[in-house]
């Protein structure tokens, strides 16, 4: 369970990005004067604010539900077992459905069969984060990563790129 620390009031926003948002985006402007030297920076801050709900965002939240499972198990021992029992009846057929769905997906991307295994190996070298997403056995590593928030989000961003690259290469192949 996360209990956030509350530091109280600071004299200024703590990050340079927040300060820049105040002094570059807000405040008076003199229309007739162009601030040539700052144009690049303004573009950067505007870029950073563009937020698009994307597949990567959804995958990130799906991934968060995997971590939720781990936390639930450590916080309350009775409940996950109960849920497991409740869903056990339907679980095997659901899993099967999901797996055959995945197979269809993969064959859709690669045409008929092809070099699926080679591609998987490449993925793993390119992006550990993505491999972690597929393999529950690495979940314990994911948990320790949570302690360093920055490190984790950097990893996620790379994983996201991996996903995009792979989709792009699949598009080229099909």
């Amino acid at each position, binding site marked *: 369970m996360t209990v956030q620390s509350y530091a109280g009031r600071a004299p200024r926003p703590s990050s340079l990005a927040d300060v820049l948002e105040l002094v570059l985006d807000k405040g008076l402007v003199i229309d007739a004067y162009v601030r040539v030297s700052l144009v690049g920076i303004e573009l950067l801050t505007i870029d950073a604010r563009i937020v698009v709900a994307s597949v990567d965002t959804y995958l990130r939240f799906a991934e*968060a539900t995997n971590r939720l499972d781990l936390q639930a198990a450590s916080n309350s021992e009775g409940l996950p077992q109960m849920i497991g029992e409740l869903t056990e009846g339907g679980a095997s057929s659901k899993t099967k459905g999901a797996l055959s769905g995945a197979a269809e997906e993969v064959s859709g991307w690669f045409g008929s069969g092809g070099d699926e295994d080679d591609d998987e190996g490449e993925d793993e070298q390119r992006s550990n984060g993505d491999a972690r997403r597929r393999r529950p056995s690495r979940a314990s590593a994911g948990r320790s990563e949570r302690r360093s928030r920055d490190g984790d989000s950097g990893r996620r961003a790379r994983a996201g790129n991996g996903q995009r690259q792979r989709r792009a290469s699949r598009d080229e192949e099909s």
Partner: protein
Amino acid sequence: MLCVYGVVRSAHPGVEVTGVQSQPTWKVCSGELGAIVSEASDLLARRRDVEAHLDVLEQALDRGDVLPYRFGTVVDDAPALCGVLERSASHYLDLLARIGGRVQMTVKVVRDDDESVRTVVTSDPHLRQQVSLRRGSAAAWTDRVALGERVAAAVDRLSQQDLELITHRLATTADAIEVAPAQPPAIASIALLARPDQLAELDNAVASLHDTLGQRMRFEYAGPMPAYSFVS
């Protein structure tokens, strides 16, 4: 070139701190208004210069009312600046009356995604069932995306509710409030215009929001600062 920091009333005593590029500051006056300026050449948004801009404006605020210019605003010379002050005098005087005696406080609301996911999934039996069926690496990619989309939508709804509570509580302790979207994981950047005698109440409001929502939201609370967000 003159770098301009802010507009003050001509009776404002000015500031003593140095400005960008370690240049001394002074006041250029025109009628009822004045502007705090310093010499500048080839100004870039370097950290120390951005901080110098803040230093000048914060001291100006300590000594009276100030309308902050954006960082990097430059004019050719003092006569050009006087022209600007004359042309915009009524606008600037209106703004000074509006923000007079007040300061800006900012509250950035940052969401803890994992904790928000936990809240929405555990409180919604239907969603919990979806998660138990579709989570994990065994699920098809499309199923995981669909699940993530549902969870993201539920988390956004929760954040929207939280944000309504936050803005409602903060608005009652300030004269004006501006809520702007922010880059994730932040969900909003809130600017408040408040009188100094309202600050203790505002401190309490932010602390109580932390008590209520602190498990899934972090509050980055800063100020007092010049009214950057209320002068446009």
